[in-house]
């Protein structure tokens, strides 16, 4: 039964995918949604069982084995994976259903549904993996599904490009991941999670030499693995693909680029907690990078005009919080935020999708406005999502985000304090941009033309029902889950699926953080909302003035801190320039010119010269003969003497 959870989506994907042109839209929808529903039911039941103490490792089939390397298709069922599976299944099912409405008019709907189901399969394979290689299988698989879905509208040049970009940037992360796997195998002689953790004590203290300098093996492995997580979870430096990925259909953005796939990095870090706990350096690095991401993405989100891009940067920022939490050894908090975020961010995205749907595909917030009255349900749901995102009680985001910020304070480390500062700033900014987004989209007068106006409508039930369900999640999940995930009972809840060193007490201490620490985020959130309302609702000219006044900063933010430009210059341009150089200069002008072509030219030239020796004159011939005789004779004589 457990195996059915990932296999059902796979079956749906294969069924619908292979016969996508013969199967009708309705049947495709029916099959995928039904399979997903069953899978979700199973996953929830499993989750329930696991909470009650069930744990197992299920070997479905061998994959390959060679010596000590044994890799099997297997499922590691513990709290971590069960929670993840439940989240993935629930969100995925809702997105499946939502797509039925959203993509109704698309001609190749079966293909889309197949991709969605395929994605779900890979994601489930990832989270239920019992070893690094299967995890990598899922990891790359979701990357593939993401590539396919971003580029789903392949006639759009930008969509196709964004798909490739997403895949490639993820590959850069995978570069680290693969090497991390290799290093793990070299050090631990196994890739199975349990065995790795068991052998950590033996490996502690051993060192790698990387290009000359020594680095502690565990730290090296952790950093390499984290590089993979950076790619997938869009951390600063490898985040550049995420905003572009918004080229894909909105349900895709909700499912993949908000709720599930991007959190795979965080999940992996939690899964590997048994290893990361042993490397203070790696954890410190993770904390700093997470905090930086949280702050950076929030700043950029403030100036974006594309609705989905704002949410995308917001996702990026929230992922920063989760990673930061991992760096603080607050894995429970990370998973908590992951779960709540899955609900409210999916909600936000789908609501945004509903809005975009209503506006016939318009995504630019400058061309929206005044929708409050026209689509009130969406407006309401947007509020729910937004408040949850900002972290206003009793919405779920409040619980999960606050605990992270508190843990940052109670860790009492330098990276922790750094993270605390940036996270709080992030909260302020989050509130600002969320308000800005809401106001620009729904308030004021409409800024679109009549033709669009006539088209504006509330979404069909297939879209609004998932939205309502998600809204419930966004409302309730925080309060309901907080005791299990981060509360006093969390140890019993996680039961070894998460490992925390005894001296990493940040999360435990977080409950006893000073009162000002506890209330600071909330205060900042409210302040941010106020600021947002002030700038965009009341003094509408203020932002423009500010932008003019702080022009360099504005430009800096608009260009996303020039990270993209830097990448283009550093990697893309230089790689192509280098490639041209190697091809024309290396292959053609050097290797060929000195190698085969060069030699054959020399030989031919020599041949031509030798041919001239044959002058046709007898006395030249005689001379050659005599030269030979004299030389050989002289040789004999010289030898004789």
């Amino acid at each position: 039964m457990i195996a059915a959870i990932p296999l059902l989506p796979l079956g749906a994907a294969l069924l619908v995918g292979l016969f996508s042109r013969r199967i009708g839209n309705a049947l495709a929808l029916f099959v995928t949604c039904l399979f997903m529903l069953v899978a979700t039911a199973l996953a929830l039941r499993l989750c329930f069982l696991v909470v009650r103490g069930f744990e197992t490792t299920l070997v479905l089939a061998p994959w390959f084995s060679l010596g000590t390397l044994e890799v099997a298709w297997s499922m590691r069922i513990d709290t971590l994976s069960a929670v993840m599976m439940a989240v993935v299944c629930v969100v995925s099912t809702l997105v499946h259903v939502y797509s039925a409405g959203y993509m109704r008019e698309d001609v190749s709907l079966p293909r889309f549904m197949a991709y969605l189901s395929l994605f779900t399969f890979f994601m489930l394979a990832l989270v239920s993996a019992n070893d690094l290689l299967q995890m990598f299988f899922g990891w790359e698989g979701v990357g593939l599904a993401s590539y396919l879905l971003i580029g789903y509208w392949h006639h759009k040049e930008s969509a196709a490009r964004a798909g490739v970009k997403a895949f490639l940037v993820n590959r850069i992360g995978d570069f680290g991941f693969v090497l991390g796997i290799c290093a793990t195998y070299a050090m631990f002689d196994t890739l199975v999670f349990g065995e790795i953790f068991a052998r950590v004590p033996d490996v502690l203290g051993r060192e790698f030499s990387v290009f000359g300098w020594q680095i502690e093996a565990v730290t090296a492995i952790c950093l390499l693995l984290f590089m993979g997580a950076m790619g997938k979870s869009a951390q600063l430096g490898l985040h550049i693909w995420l905003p572009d990925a918004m080229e894909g259909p909105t349900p895709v953005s909700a499912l993949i680029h908000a709720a599930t796939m991007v959190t795979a990095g965080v999940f992996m870090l939690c899964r590997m907690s048994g290893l990361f706990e042993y490397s203070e350096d790696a954890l410190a690095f993770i904390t700093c990078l997470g905090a930086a991401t949280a702050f950076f993405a929030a700043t950029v989100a403030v100036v974006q005009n594309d609705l989905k891009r704002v949410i995308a940067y917001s996702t990026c920022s929230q992922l920063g919080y989760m990673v930061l939490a991992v760096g603080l050894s607050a894995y429970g908090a990370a998973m908590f935020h992951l779960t709540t975020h899955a609900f409210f961010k999916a909600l936000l995205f789908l609501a945004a999708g509903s809005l975009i749907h209503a506006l016939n595909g318009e995504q630019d917030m400058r061309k929206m406005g005044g929708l409050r009255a026209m689509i009130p349900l969406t407006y309401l749901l947007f509020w729910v999502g937004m408040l949850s995102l900002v972290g206003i009680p009793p919405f779920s985001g409040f619980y999960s985000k606050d605990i992270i910020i508190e843990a940052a304070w109670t860790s009492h480390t330098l990276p922790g304090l750094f993270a605390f500062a940036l996270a709080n700033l992030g909260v302020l900014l989050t509130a600002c941009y969320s308000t800005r987004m809401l106001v620009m989209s729904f308030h004021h007068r409409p800024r679109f033309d009549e033709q669009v106006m006539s088209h504006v409508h509330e979404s069909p039930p297939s879209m609004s029902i998932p939205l309502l369900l998600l809204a419930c999640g966004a409302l309730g999940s925080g309060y309901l889950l907080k005791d299990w995930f981060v509360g006093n009972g969390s140890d019993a809840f996680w039961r070894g699926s998460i490992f925390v060193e005894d001296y990493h007490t940040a999360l435990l201490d977080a409950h006893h953080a000073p009162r000002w620490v506890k209330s600071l985020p909330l205060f900042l959130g409210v302040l941010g909302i106020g600021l947002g309302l002030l700038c965009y609702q009341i003094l509408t000219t203020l932002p423009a003035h500010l932008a003019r006044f702080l022009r360099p900063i504005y430009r800096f933010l608009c260009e996303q801190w020039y990270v993209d430009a830097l990448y283009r210059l550093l990697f893309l341009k230089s790689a192509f320039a280098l490639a041209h150089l190697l091809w024309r200069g290396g292959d053609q002008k050097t290797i060929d010119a000195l190698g085969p072509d060069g030699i054959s030219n020399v030989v031919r030239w020599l041949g031509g010269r030798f041919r001239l020796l044959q002058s046709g004159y007898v006395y030249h011939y005689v001379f050659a003969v005599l030269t030979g005789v004299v030389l050989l004779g002289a040789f004999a004589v010289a030898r004789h003497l």
Partner: protein
Amino acid sequence: MEVLTNLWFSLGAEIVLACATLLLLLLGLLLTERHATRLVCYLSIALLLVLAVLLMWSAQNERFSDASETTAMASLIGRHFRLDTFALFCKVIVLLTTACVLLIGQVFVADASVSKSLYRFEYVIIILLATLGMCLMVSARSLLALYIGLELQSLALYICAALQRDNLRSSEAGLKYFMLGALSSALLLFGCSLLYGSVGSIYFDAILAAAHADGASSLMLQVGMVLTLCAIAFKISAVPFHMWTPDVYEGAPSSTVAFLATASKVAALALLMRLLVEAFMPLKEAWQPIIALLALASMLLGALATLPQSNIKRFIAYSAITHIGILLIGFATATPEGMRAALFYLCIYIIMSLGLFAMLLALRNAEQPSERLADLSGLSHSDPKAALALSALMFSMAGLPPFAGFFAKFYVLLAALRSDLTWLALCGVAASVVSTFYYIRIVKVMYFDEPQEQVVLTGRSNRWVLYLTAIAVALLTLQPSTLLRHSEQAVRVLFAS
């Protein structure tokens, strides 16, 4: 009876050949011109074949053994000529080759568009005389015998080269060949005289004994040896004594060139081998580097100078120089193994050359005999089988497996490596890569280039020879050891003395 038998086992084939040649000459004179040529030609082919069969048969005869010539030794002739396994092997090759050359030459000499002066029965007679000289060469055991054989062959060949009387190129080829050939004869004679002077005898065994005794100290002996070797190097066209080769090959009538490039090479190489082993073996230290140098120069110059050629005959000339170079690597090892490899190489080379000449002699472009490489283009269309056969020959010439040419090269290189002549083997490799280039260029011309003119092959017998040689080089791969064993037996006799 005893005398006759002894005679047969020393010089019998030559005597029969000489008598028969004279009879054929008479016959030719008696008949009218038109019939004479054809008849004489077929009769001589038959004669050569019969002689070859007789020789092969006598190798099976119990009276024939390499030791049995102790009786023949006693006779005067026996001191000068010897029919041992080696001589027998080479003689059979010479006779068969000549027969084949006569056969495939028919279509060329009889072609009215070539020259009226070629199609005469004297042409056959002269070839037979040259063959006689070659037979003498391979059995020669004294300097005099060597000289007589060589001269008989050369004089006949001079005439052959200039045989196309009304053709300027032919006569120029003849003249050049004569002038340089005379020079080489003179070198040979002077060398022989020095050898005679230092040894006091003209017999190989005496030279061997003298060289054994004080060879290293006698300057005259060594200079004589060098001069003799130079003269023979001229005959086998090793660089730098090769200069006549391209010009003569190009100018002389193709039928002559076929003879020149095959039978005469066998005889000269056999002579060289016998001389080196039976007379100069103790001077190994002296001649080994000389032969190695000749090999090196021949391989490199041959390989390089072939590249720009556009005339098939000139092309063959230079490629022959390359082959001789590789073959001489075997000589340079001075071991039975190397000599065996060289002999093996020679046999395969002859087979390949015969096929090539069978094609060349039959090649007609717009009814005219063709010599341009470019004319081969389109042969794969007009005559796919011949093109296939020719490309097999070319691959074999290039020494590519699975053709016999590969094994030829294989054993030469093996012998070189065993004798620590790795540098020579490496040069051989370089040369064969370059030479492969121009062999496969012929394949390219036949198959890849757009056909420009309509070329055809005439003559059924030539076609058959072409096919047979191609099949031979392809099938020899299956069973190379028979030929290898015979070469080994032949060479072993030389080293036994």
